[in-house]
């Protein structure tokens, strides 16, 4: 199949989602509420970094300019990153971290299931590995959303606040531009509109079980996957990219 700019863009988006959320989750290491969660968060971060490596390597090959996973991860600036805005938002507390993981991993499960049949066979192979991980992440975070939502008054309030804050960013999951239309037409990935109802059908019952109120949709729109980010991404990148930027060309 001939490589199109939309194809490169699409795979880059998937890689950036995994990398940026993996980076955020790694900030928890050593600071979680219980030792088991230190390990779970490190483990899930590791899964996402692993996915990012495969996806960015694949994107680099599709691009054909000799850029490897590290050049893509460490030498691009904000406007060239294509992750969902939700992934770059600060952790804030364990509640927001778990609600975010739940919303995102639930999307990933549906997406990877569809990508098993992608016309891009490399992407289909990555999907097969990533699907198992995403299922675990969704289960882990979903369990916590229920515990926190239906726990103490304080945990309920924090979980609801997290959901209220994050929910508007989920509209971006299903937003489409000509890239997405080209991807669907080429059989590389599903149209986002096809996933929206399925995602809500998975997410809403868990939020109900957690006794949380699903917020109404608002006119707010975020555009991270189209390259326009929040203020938070620049800080995340300046920390993540520090060594590669300070010592250009060094091998590590």
């Amino acid at each position, binding site marked *: 199949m001939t490589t199109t700019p939309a194809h490169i863009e699409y795979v880059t988006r998937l890689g950036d989602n995994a990398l940026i959320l993996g980076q955020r989750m790694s*900030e928890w290491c050593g600071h979680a*509420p219980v*030792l088991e969660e230190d390990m779970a968060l490190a483990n899930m971060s*590791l899964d996402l970094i692993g996915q990012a490596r495969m996806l960015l390597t694949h994107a680099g090959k599709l691009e054909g300019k000799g850029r490897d996973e590290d050049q893509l991860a460490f030498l691009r600036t904000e406007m060239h990153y294509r992750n969902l805005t939700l992934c770059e938002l600060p952790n804030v507390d364990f509640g927001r971290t778990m609600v975010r993981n739940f919303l995102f991993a639930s999307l990933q499960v549906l997406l990877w299931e569809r990508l098993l049949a992608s016309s891009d066979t490399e992407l289909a192979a990555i999907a097969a590995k990533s699907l198992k991980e995403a299922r675990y992440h969704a289960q882990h975070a979903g369990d916590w959303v229920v*515990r926190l939502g*239906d726990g103490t008054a304080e*945990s309920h309030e924090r979980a609801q606040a997290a959901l209220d804050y994050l929910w508007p960013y989920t509209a971006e999951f299903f937003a489409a531009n000509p890239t997405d239309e080209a991807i669907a037409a080429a059989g590389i990935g599903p149209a986002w509109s096809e996933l929206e109802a399925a995602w809500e059908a998975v997410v809403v019952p868990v939020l109900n079980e957690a006794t949380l109120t699903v917020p109404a949709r608002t006119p707010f729109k975020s555009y991270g996957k189209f390259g326009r980010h929040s203020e938070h991404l620049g800080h995340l990148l300046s920390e*993540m990219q520090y060594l590669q930027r300070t010592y250009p060309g060094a091998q*590590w």
Partner: protein
Amino acid sequence: MYTQALDIPQQNAEKAPRAVENPAYQAEFDAKIDAGGYIEAKDWMPEAYRKTLVRQISQHAHSEIVGMLPEGNWITRAPTLKRKAILLAKVQDEGGHGLYLYAAAETLGVSRDELLDALHTGKAKYSSIFNYPTLTWADIGVIGWLVDGAAIMNQIPLCKCSYGPYARAMVRICKEESFHQRQGYDLLLTMMKGTQEQREMVQDAVNRWWWPSIMMFGPHDKDSVHSGQSARWGIKRISNDDLRQKFVDATVKQAEVLGVTMPDPELKWNEERGHYDFGAIDWDEFWNVVNGHGQGNVDRLAARVKAWEDGAWVREAALEHERKRAAREHQAA
């Protein structure tokens, strides 16, 4: 790792061994130890033996989780995705070591919460090596090479220690630590093949970590207060000075291959002894760090306490949810 403080005099150190509590049980216990057998959780054991193990195992567990902090300091800044993945996996392993060790300590009748409380209130110690800061990426390699290397030397004898649950935990821990050491060394080899700036970073890290690493073996045998009793109980099999010498001998050769020098002008091969001689250890520095007279100690403990306090609402929520769920099940039944 991280058993150095076992040998440190404590103000309230119990006078081991205690009076024989039950002569028949004591005889059976002694016979098992003498035959090189394992004591299991359900077996009778002298109270002083139990207390020594609780102190040593919990100290070791605390060291693993405090040890996540200096290395965690570089996870978000790792220079490549591969190195980030390796470091994350390593720090995750350390959390796992903490878990098995707390579980081993729990077989002796203490709870993890009690042990953590002792850490957070400063009553329990952890290995002072983790009070040193990680200043550059090379520190991550040097910790793997020297600190984990010293830890392995200390820990391999513990795989045969007389308390079964501890010995079995150590077998698994030692395997993972050896892997960490090789990864640390590989990181340094790559940096040494790199630019002048990278080589300087490695040498600077070696200069800062060498002496603290050899202090990890604890005081000289003649000054070690707990060693005699621990040796009789089969908890400690090889002396501090013997382990330290073994570490120095192995490490100097690795430093030559790497192309770094140790910050010790007196370090040289002694043909007669068949070992490397090394300079005098600055014990004032050692005791200062061990006794927590340092801001590193303040910062590490504060980070642990903050994580614990910030997470209180999460732990309470999990318990409350479980109570609600059980009550609903009860009502439905």
